[in-house]
């Protein structure tokens, strides 16, 4: 009993000790109010000042040297630092991260500062973000619009204030855009179509067979062009039976599409999807059905995709997928920052063809569209031969 009492007291002592501290705090009454506020201040300071700022991925020593060099140059000659605002739509998407990184790297090479925001898929937030960027006095705004129509008020605001507005990957329905940088999606579809004909000819001696096309969201320009480029090639070959299933980019709809088609047409020769985002569902569905056999096996179903994500490059390396059209996602920002530089220096951008020997995105073409100019970068057909090319965005960010 004595012992039990002792333990109790011991516990009580601890409690008293804790409470004693509380009392001490209580005695200095004002502390109770000051403490939380000071805590908030500290946390806010720590969070805001220590949270990582925008940084370039230094891919090689060379770029690093270049960055410091140009920074030194600019600080030496120019007093005013140029700041670019970048409003991303939805960063959980690795493609968007790549696009953003391309712009950051491109701008940093020129010695500029980049401020980034993420709209988290919310059009309203993207408009607010651009407002904030304007407040910070950015010299140009670059954005991948979350929605081509809903971005318009932000573009118009920039137009009024004379801030040049650039978009990447998607255009807008109104306002005045200096330049939209995107991929030539018709070319991407055509490249896959041509490759299909080549593969079918290799299989049967002539282009024939059954092909499933899993379409993206047909309300978007991107899906229409990726479809048209492919369909135009296929249409020249009457022996190819084309089955089209709209998926609205959803992987589960893609999976269902391929399952249903294999039920009605078990002799399917090829699958083409408008995006590897959808394709992920397709590949797993084929795997489930035991139809995911490597190239060379006579039961192999030809798999063709678009985007060029790291996943797809791995499928190609593992002989599961035949080809993909890699979008120049990383180059979007690099190329875009050059044109931002031109615009800020007052050099006019003219429609025409842009060529850069050695670059994967070359030849590109600049066209006039309703809201401004549009630069279409070439896509790259990726097969087993060139899958390890370091210029492919799927190999840039891992």
């Amino acid at each position, binding site marked *: 009993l004595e012992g039990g009492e002792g333990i109790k007291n011991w516990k009580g002592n601890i*409690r*008293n000790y804790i*409470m004693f501290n509380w009392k001490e705090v*209580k005695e200095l*009454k004002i502390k*109770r*109010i000051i403490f*939380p*506020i000071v*805590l*908030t*201040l500290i*946390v*806010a*300071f720590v*969070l*805001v*000042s220590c*949270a*990582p*700022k*925008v*940084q370039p991925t230094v891919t090689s020593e060379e770029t690093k040297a270049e960055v410091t060099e140009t920074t030194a140059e600019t600080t030496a000659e120019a007093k005013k630092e140029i700041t670019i605002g*970048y409003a*991303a739509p939805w*960063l959980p998407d690795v493609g968007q991260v790549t696009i*953003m990184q391309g712009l950051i790297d491109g701008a940093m090479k020129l010695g500029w500062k980049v*401020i*980034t*925001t*993420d709209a*988290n*898929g*919310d*059009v*309203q937030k993207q*408009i*607010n*973000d651009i*407002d*904030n*960027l304007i*407040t*910070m*006095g950015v010299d140009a705004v670059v954005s991948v619009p979350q*929605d*081509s*129509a*809903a971005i*318009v*008020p932000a573009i118009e605001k920039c137009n009024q204030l004379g801030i040049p507005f650039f978009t990447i990957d998607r255009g807008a*329905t*109104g306002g005045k855009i200096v330049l939209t940088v995107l991929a030539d999606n018709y070319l991407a579809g055509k490249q896959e179509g041509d490759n299909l004909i080549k593969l079918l000819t290799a299989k049967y001696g002539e282009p024939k067979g059954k092909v499933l096309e899993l379409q993206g*969201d047909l*309300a978007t320009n991107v899906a229409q062009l990726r479809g048209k480029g492919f369909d135009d090639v296929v249409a020249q070959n009457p022996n190819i039976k084309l089955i089209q299933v709209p998926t*609205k980019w959803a992987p589960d709809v893609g999976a269902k599409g391929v399952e249903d088609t294999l039920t009605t047409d078990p002799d399917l020769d090829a699958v083409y999807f408008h995006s590897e985002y959808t394709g992920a569902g397709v590949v797993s569905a084929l795997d489930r059905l035991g139809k995911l056999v490597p190239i060379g096996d006579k039961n192999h179903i030809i798999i063709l995709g678009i985007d060029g994500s790291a996943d797809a490059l791995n499928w190609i390396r593992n002989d599961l997928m035949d080809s993909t059209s890699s979008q120049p996602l990383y180059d979007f920002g690099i190329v875009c920052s050059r044109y931002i530089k031109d615009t800020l220096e007052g050099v006019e951008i003219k429609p025409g063809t842009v060529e850069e020997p050695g670059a994967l995105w070359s030849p590109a073409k600049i066209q006039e569209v309703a809201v401004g100019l549009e630069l279409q970068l070439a896509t790259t057909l990726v097969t087993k031969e060139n899958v390890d090319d370091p210029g492919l965005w799927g190999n840039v960010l891992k």
Partner: protein
Amino acid sequence: VSNIEAKNNKILPKIRLSTLQNFFLDNITWFILLAMVVVASIIAPKFLTKLNLLNLLTHVSILGILVVAESLCLITGNLDLSIESTLGFSAVIAAWLMVGRQDISGWNVQPFIAIIVMLLVGAVIGLINGYIIVKIGLDPFIATLAMLIILRGLTLVITKGVALYNLPSSFNVLGSGNIIGIQISVIVWILIFAIAYFVMSKCRFGRVRYAIGGSKWAALASGIRVDRVLIATFVYSSLLAAFAGWILAGRLHSVVANLGEGMVFDAFAASVIGGVSLRGGRGTLIGALSGVLLIGLIGNILTLAHVSAFWIDASRGMLIMVAMIIDSLKQRIRRR
């Protein structure tokens, strides 16, 4: 027994707070806000510019209206998760009536009729919510969650995922017009807020709702027609949400399928940070206002402080959590 009580009293002595301390505790969110403003103006020199402050108000005005709607529900001891999709759905209805989708010609309805219809749609949604919860007796969380999903789905049915744009400018003026440099949406928000504050704190309208939130049975016993008041509360809240939808569509000059997605979480966070209790009966709209400003301020400072886009959400969540912890510390001190 008395010994233990004495001991407890020793450990947890009753403390009496002075008027000044009570004032501090009641308005602690405002002091946090003040502290944040100080932080913001130190780390981001652009923060204290007129342009930025006006932007900040514009950005929170729509959320501010939703918070008024949510607070009304919370004070009566209910909650309404469907306000964000009511906002989206009613806006889509209006846009559909006025411009239609790209593939159909549209109805070309006059903007003012479209606005009346969208507000009516809002009111009807509130009526359905209220009826299901009050008369059929579903849990408000489940009922409004189902409504949230239903309306999101219907929005998708109408838009087919495509944005509806080219809205008439007379429709847009509420969301994007301005008077002497101040956005009309801000003025409307302040007006709505002022009216709601007045009726909730000075009129029978508010007293009845606080009574129901405090104890439904006591309110019933004292002769309040609880069912009617609750249904009316849901109607008001959905009506305000539809109104917010009008402003948001006007601000974007277009309506997208996921309009307002995720706003309900901010609306909850703002109400609760501002001291509106999730159990009902407690909290004021002034408190909720401080919550709205805090949420808006956090988003604003993080961008102005050049925080990388990847970190903004995490930082925002943490700052909200810190604000909530401070609020709960307050409650603990008060209880002692």
